[in-house]
């Protein structure tokens, strides 16, 4: 148990002899599920379902050749983005992630049309069709991408956190990465500086069990990812990433810690992606039964649906939500298919900001 600090003057992490890896986990264990209001629960359900349906449709459009290149779907991991981002202060906080980024954008309520149009490479896309699935940004929402180099977003997130601290704006940065990226060297370089400088950042490892086709046990000497900040005295949290209420509760605890100026938190969300790493992944490294078992027993949307029904929601009501979302996604897909591609004159725009 952490003792009260002896003085209030800032100390370097190395002088903090009270460091305990599990200090936040202890608090989390006392009450693991967020006490959501019925309205919040419905909102979580709708948002997760929107990601699910959007991604299913994206997969379909990919199959039709309308989406090219790489397309990494978020199906199965919806509770992570929704649980965490619902706890953000939208005016202050920033978010950054890797290439599996559609869900994080939808969690902001960004229009599915401009996201889908980016996936199809159209001028109405959020990056004017020049970024694609892996490179999308919304500075308006303080969503800083959408990065294709595995692990790069962790150091960049450290920079966003530095800007929050420098500007004293009270914001924090939420930096997502996967179990695969967790083996990149720059992640630890960033952990070191983030802890040393007490940067306001929450590192979230979305552990979906496979780095492309390599199971965590085949790639990682330490598979308990929440422990990976120990060497830098960063408290770790282990969270069931298939339960939106648990993720949200963990977010509350982690964000509070960071906002109090106590430095970074490392949160591991255990989750599962139902689809392949990208659309071109045949997923032969795991059994069909394993995937089916997850879908049958751990599905974040089905599990929340059960709670909603127990609490009195009607089946028809939930079906109507699904219908509305399907319609929204259908419209986004039509829009993305029918919007024109960028003008050839866009080829040389935005390379530089200024003229020389």
């Amino acid at each position, binding site marked *: 148990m952490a003792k009260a600090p002896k003085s209030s003057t800032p100390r370097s992490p190395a002088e903090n002899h009270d460091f305990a890896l599990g200090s936040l986990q202890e608090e989390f264990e006392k009450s693991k599920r967020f006490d959501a209001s019925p309205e919040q629960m419905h909102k979580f359900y709708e948002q997760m379902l929107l990601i699910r349906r959007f991604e299913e449709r994206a997969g379909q459009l990919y199959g039709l*050749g309308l989406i090219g290149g790489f397309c990494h779907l978020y199906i199965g991991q919806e509770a992570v983005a929704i649980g965490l981002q619902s706890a953000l202060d939208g005016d202050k906080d920033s978010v950054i992630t890797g290439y599996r980024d559609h869900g994080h954008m939808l969690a902001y309520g960004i229009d599915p049309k401009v996201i889908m149009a980016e996936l199809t490479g159209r001028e109405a896309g959020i990056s004017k069709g020049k970024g694609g699935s892996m490179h999308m*940004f919304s500075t308006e929402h303080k969503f800083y991408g*959408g990065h294709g*180099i595995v692990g790069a977003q962790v*150091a960049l997130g*450290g920079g966003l956190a530095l800007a929050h601290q*420098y500007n004293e704006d009270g914001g924090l940065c939420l930096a997502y990465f996967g179990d695969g990226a967790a083996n990149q060297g720059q992640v630890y*370089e960033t952990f*070191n500086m983030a802890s040393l400088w007490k940067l306001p950042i929450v590192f979230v490892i979305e552990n979906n069990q496979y780095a492309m086709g390599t199971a965590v046990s085949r790639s990682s000497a330490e598979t308990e990812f929440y422990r990976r900040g120990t060497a830098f005295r960063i408290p770790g949290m282990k969270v069931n990433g298939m339960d939106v209420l648990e993720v949200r509760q963990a977010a509350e605890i982690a964000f509070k810690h960071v906002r109090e100026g106590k430095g970074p938190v490392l949160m591991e969300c255990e989750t599962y992606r139902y689809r392949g790493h990208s659309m071109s992944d045949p997923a032969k490294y795991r059994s069909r039964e394993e995937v089916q078992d997850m879908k049958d027993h751990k599905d974040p949307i089905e599990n929340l649906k059960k709670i909603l029904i127990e609490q009195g929601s009607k089946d028809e009501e939930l079906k109507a939500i699904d219908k509305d979302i399907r319609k929204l996604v259908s419209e986004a897909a039509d829009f993305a298919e029918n919007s024109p591609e960028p003008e050839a004159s866009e080829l040389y725009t935005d390379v*530089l900001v200024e003229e020389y």
Partner: protein
Amino acid sequence: MAIELKMPALSPTMEEGTLAKWLKQEGDEIVAGDIIAEIETDKATMEFEAVDEGTLGKILVAEGTENVAVGTVIAMLAAEGEDASEVAASAPESEDVPGEGKDVGRDASEAEITKPAKKTDVKDPEIPHGTNMATVTVREALRDAMAEEMRRDERVFVMGEEVAQYQGAYKVTQGLLDEFGPKRVIDTPITEYGFAGIGTGAAMGGLRPIVEFMTFNFAMQAIDHIINSAAKTNYMSGGQMRCPVVFRGPNAAASRVGAQHSQNYGPWYASVPGLIVIAPYDASDAKGLMKAAIRCEDPVVFLENELVYGRSFELPELDDHVLPIGKARIVREGSDVTIVSYSIAVGLALEAAEQLAEEGIDAEVIDLRTLRPLDKETVLESLKKTNRMVIAEEGWPTCSIASEIVAICMEEGFDHLDAPVTRVCDEDVPLPYAANLEKLALIDTPKIVKAAKKVCYRD
């Protein structure tokens, strides 16, 4: 409304595949997520998952069929309330309008590709008559530029190894900690990839970081952030997300530090769209361009030279000495041959010009100052005048700035050439440690003189 199930593309390059197996039969109820069929390509077998709910209607492509083109309708799915048995192949494909989406894009037309206009008539600001000229070192000029910009803009800060308490490994940041404090002059651990990423992210977040590399040799560990994160973001975001960061530090050969510490990265960075690359020679350019770099909305790689840090030059004492990026400077006018150069080699080129003058050859010397965007107009203008050109570069010859200048002269100045454009660079070897071998490997004045005489047919 019945839904067409089409042969999916399972990879970016797949055009056709084998419909290996139907896992659902006509009349089966389908829910989203069900695996309907298995598709084989030459690379893999993949599962075809249902997205919509309904009843499988007519199967139009039998299992075992090979070479099924992507997009072929392979079955029909009857929606709720429809009779599956009556759902057959549906309406013909709607006509594709070029440019209006679908698979067909706009026709690429060269005429429509417009490159951004280059600013013309950009000149260095006039120095008012009577301005006092101070003698300062390049080191002091760089430090003063940073300090002035830090006073001017609260968002500007410096980070890097030994920049604060140690006062800079090469003392370029001397005194900054005292004036601006540890919030704005940040000592980092030895962790180039990490702090280059943090600096880049801070720029994305609205700050104006100056990231010092102790030398650009160490920036190799960080080059991913310079190129993939800083240079490409504005483009990939359709102009939404800027990255106004300056990466600076000494570049190229120092003295007797061996191959790993002695390399000119100018050509590397200058090849990357989205970056500004500056490599000044004297104190006035170092100060004026550093101030411009810090104010610039684009990411800048600012290449200094350790051997030049201590050299003194005249610098106009002005309140705000800012020079234009992307503009070369004629440092010595001449009419017989042009020597194009940048960074430390400008000093050698000027020495060579003096020696050539003694032999009756009047050389013009151009300092490129900015390597990207390259001021080819000034280079071609000079070629038009002298008809002969040598490029003096302290760096390897292959794929160099010199090579680029040669290409520009071939493509755009061919009619003005009276002799082949000639590269004078370092030898094409890793830089050796032994004093005699190091000397042999590096560019020097006699080599430039020799090449200039050769293109003047005076050897």
